[in-house]
């Protein structure tokens, strides 16, 4: 039977401390006593961000929020609200926060209930192509508040107070960046939104723009006001046609409504925006290369300092932030920097969006408070590994990040913890790997990507990644030799130290982290010529077991006639001629062919 009501109980640390687990027991008992267990569902959520009012209990439909709930209150809530359908006014709290708006619709699904949505608060809730929809959910109120009652200085202080850090990957404190740009003199400054999302498997920025483009615009306009810029640019890759189309629509609608252009909302502040398309070079996500690309030059990084905050686009002070960073700004302005700083860990505040992919049941886009563990993400939200396979590693940070094995599953998501574990936060790619993947091959995949995308300006990155890739290829083809591992490590360290930009400096990370955590797989490849996952085809041998009934299907499918045998007798593979194409393996209906 489908539940008529859903009770959501916060299971964040503060609420647990305030006795929420005893409340859960009391609720279950009370519902049973009243005979309501069937029609009322109890749902446990992650931190709901209302810690000061905890323990929090939300009743849906109706989205009634009860705060400061005690075990003694439970019979009253059940009797009054669930039986007599009259909410208990005494315990209800009024909340008009921006974050977690998705909760009314999705709060009862495990996948969503464990999340906290700040940057993605409207994604999947409103029509992204209608400014009316955005206005109706307090859209542009943060901008209006800033223009009505806050000085640029106060805006920057609010961002600093929030503890927000750059969501593009490096994690530089956003407030500081704003302050550095604001204190530069000169009347021409720029604001840039970096939407050049390039990590393989990452789609956070695309989804954010496609789901709620106005949030990003509002953040950028507020940034322009804070640093005294009159012009904003969204740099987005041409591969995102729908995101571009929705952004264009949003910019046009904002202009029509006096939210962009001269004297915004009747104030003295004027600001306008345009879109620049990137051609899809990975390196253009690096801020200096991105700026050169906008200037019409070849997208290549230049050394910093000078930082863009001092000398950026066209030599002018420039504030550049990532899409997700911008999307957080309106919430910080309306719900307050102080509230924002209560979410997350000591050093990393707020939430982080991840594109959860790979060998996990629920692949998708998630936003969780900082401090959530990898285990919670993979098993509670992601639903674990499909097909009963064993977890092997989780890759964060895309081609700049690393692979963490099982013993790191309880690592908390924050910039420092992930770095200490040997990976990085990155922009939000998260790939779950099971036992069927070969770590050497995976490292090779990422290195192929960075090698291909290396802009070629500095030698360590251009030549170094090439040499590393050659060694990796050799290893996966069964020609690895003693000393290869050490050579990879030496090259990797050298590239990290000597490369010009962040991409080169992080390019060896996938190799170095797998060398650290999965060294035995490299050793097996090199010394035993064995690939335990059976991925590196050159290292795989196929053999026919006694299960063979001699049907001859494999013999007929083999392109090099390496299989021989009489009808109804066990066949055999000639390893000399076998090219390891694997066709016999997939053809055999009797599981008689094994990979070794």
């Amino acid at each position, binding site marked *: 039977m489908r539940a008529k009501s859903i009770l959501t109980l916060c299971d964040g640390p503060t609420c647990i401390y305030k006795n929420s687990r005893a409340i859960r027991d009391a609720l279950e008992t009370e519902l049973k006593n009243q005979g309501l267990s069937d029609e009322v569902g109890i749902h446990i959520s992650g931190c709901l961000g209302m810690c000061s009012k905890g323990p929090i209990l939300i009743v849906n*439909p109706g989205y009634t929020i009860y705060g400061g709930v005690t075990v003694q209150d439970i019979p009253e809530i059940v009797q009054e609200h669930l039986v007599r359908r009259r909410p208990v006014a005494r315990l209800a709290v009024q909340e008009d926060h921006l974050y977690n708006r998705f909760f009314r619709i999705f709060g009862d699904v495990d996948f969503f209930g464990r999340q906290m949505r700040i940057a*993605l608060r409207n994604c999947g809730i409103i029509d992204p192509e209608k400014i009316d*929809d955005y206005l109706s959910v307090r859209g542009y109120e943060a901008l209006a508040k800033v223009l009505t009652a806050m000085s640029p200085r106060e805006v920057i202080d609010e961002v600093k107070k929030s503890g927000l850090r750059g969501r593009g990957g490096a994690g530089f404190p956003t407030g500081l960046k704003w302050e550095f740009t604001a204190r530069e003199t000169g009347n021409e400054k720029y604001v840039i939104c970096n939407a050049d999302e390039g990590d393989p498997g990452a789609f956070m920025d695309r989804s954010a723009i496609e789901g709620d483009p106005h949030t990003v615009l509002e953040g950028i306009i507020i940034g322009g006001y804070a640093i005294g810029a009159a012009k904003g640019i969204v740099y987005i890759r041409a591969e995102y046609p729908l995101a571009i189309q929705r952004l264009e629509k949003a910019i046009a609608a904002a202009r029509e409504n006096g939210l962009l252009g001269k004297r915004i909302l009747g104030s003295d502040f004027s600001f306008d925006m345009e879109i620049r398309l990137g051609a899809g070079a990975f390196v253009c996500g690096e801020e200096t290369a991105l700026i050169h690309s906008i200037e019409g030059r070849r997208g290549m990084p230049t050394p910093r300092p000078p930082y863009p905050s001092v000398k950026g686009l066209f030599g002018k002070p420039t504030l550049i932030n990532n899409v997700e960073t911008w999307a957080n700004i309106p919430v910080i302005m309306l719900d307050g920097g102080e509230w924002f700083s209560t979410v997350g860990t000591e050093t990393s505040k707020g939430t982080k969006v991840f594109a959860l992919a790979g060998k996990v049941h629920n692949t998708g886009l998630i936003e969780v408070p900082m401090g959530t563990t990898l285990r919670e993400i993979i098993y509670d939200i992601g639903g674990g590994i499909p097909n009963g396979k064993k977890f092997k590693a989780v890759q964060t940070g895309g081609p700049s990040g690393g692979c963490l094995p099982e013993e790191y599953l309880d690592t908390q998501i924050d910039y420092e913890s992930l770095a200490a574990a040997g990976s990085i936060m990155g922009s939000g790619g998260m790939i779950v790997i099971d036992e069927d993947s070969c770590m050497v091959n995976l490292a090779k995949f990422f290195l192929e990507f960075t090698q291909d995308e290396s802009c070629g300006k500095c030698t360590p990155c251009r030549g170094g990644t090439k040499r590393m890739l050659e060694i990796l290829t050799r290893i996966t083809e069964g020609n690895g030799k003693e000393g290869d591992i050490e050579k990879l490590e030496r090259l990797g360290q050298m590239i990290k130290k000597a490369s010009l930009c962040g991409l080169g400096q992080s390019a060896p990370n996938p190799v170095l982290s797998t060398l650290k955590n999965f060294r035995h797989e490299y050793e097996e490849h090199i010394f035993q010529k064995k690939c335990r996952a059976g991925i590196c085809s050159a290292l795989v041998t196929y053999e026919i077991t006694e299960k063979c009934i001699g049907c001859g299907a494999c013999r007929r499918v083999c392109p090099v006639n390496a299989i021989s045998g009489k009808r109804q007798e066990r066949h055999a593979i000639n390893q000399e001629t076998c090219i390891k194409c694997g066709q016999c393996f997939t053809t055999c209906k009797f599981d008689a062919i094994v990979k070794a």
Partner: protein
Amino acid sequence: MVTPLDIIKKKRAEAVARIIGRGYLSTKRVYVGMATCEIAAGSKEVMEVFRQSIAKGGLKDVYLSQKGCAGRCNLEPTVEIVEEGKIPVKYGKVTPERARQIIERHLKNNEVIEEWLI
């Protein structure tokens, strides 16, 4: 003096009025996911089924809207049906055929199709 905050509040009130004018207060609201990923999974065709059904008059008192991606990649295309006073219903892997059934069984006859729920 009229402040930016006054202006935006007025704009919001107007926006809400326009949304209501589009039929937001209908008994049932239907949201179809329409981000690149959902469209790739076939949500445009699904949207078309709902649109046609409303245009032809077979479906009355329903507010239809697109939305961005909520994040359930492996279950796309997704369709939500929101009714005041009830727990919102979320369907996953909706095909045009399923959309037709959702219209007939859920929207017209109030039958929640349990096996397609997220």
